[in-house]
């Protein structure tokens, strides 16, 4: 059973376009995190959202936590080639961090 469902699985866009990645679950999470992973490296934390309805901005990236703390979204404005990578959402459930299957983003110039 996949606790966290990410969509889309793959996304290929042109530089300058906007995009949104979704992370959905039927479970309530104490927190949701977004990580970015580049080839040959481990995931790196981008943001943690804790409060239902919370919105956090990190330059061109906007993260939102659903009111019921079951889902989250990541919106990227004016994507750049440097945004290319695997985006993973992760939810805190008990003493474990459960990951979604990721969204592979490719931004071409």
């Amino acid at each position, binding site marked *: 059973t996949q606790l966290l469902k990410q969509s889309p699985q793959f996304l290929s866009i042109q530089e300058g376009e906007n995009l949104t990645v979704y992370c959905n679950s039927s479970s309530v999470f104490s927190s949701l995190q977004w990580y970015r992973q580049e080839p040959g490296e*481990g995931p790196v*934390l981008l943001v943690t959202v804790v409060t239902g309805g919370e919105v956090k901005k990190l330059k061109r990236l906007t993260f939102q936590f659903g009111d019921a703390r079951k889902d989250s979204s990541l919106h990227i404005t004016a994507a750049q080639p440097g945004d290319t990578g695997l985006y993973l959402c992760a939810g805190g459930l008990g003493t474990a*961090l459960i990951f979604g299957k990721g969204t592979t983003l490719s931004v071409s110039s």
Partner: protein
Amino acid sequence: DTAVSQTPKYLVTQMGNDKSIKCEQNLGHDTMYWYKQDSKKFLKIMFSYNNKELIINETVPNRFSPKSPDKAHLNLHINSLELGDSAVYFCASSQVLLGTGNEKLFFGSGTQLSVL
């Protein structure tokens, strides 16, 4: 100055062999983890240790044995390797045990294990 370092980066071995992956963190964190990432990039927790004590063992075959000699180290030993063990294994650490919210995981750069 790598925060979480794991060795080796690549490991190619035959079925049936025994191998170890080492992990060290210099962040002073109390909790360390092993995650397995399959060919479809799905990252799944295997073990977590807090202050050298095993906290999570996620239905991992007992051929996998983690060992934590101290808070800064969590090694993974795998006996009788099977083809299905091929994956990228990530070590990670965090300041506190997950579950209190707002934890940050620091990952190593991974060990790509290929079992032939």
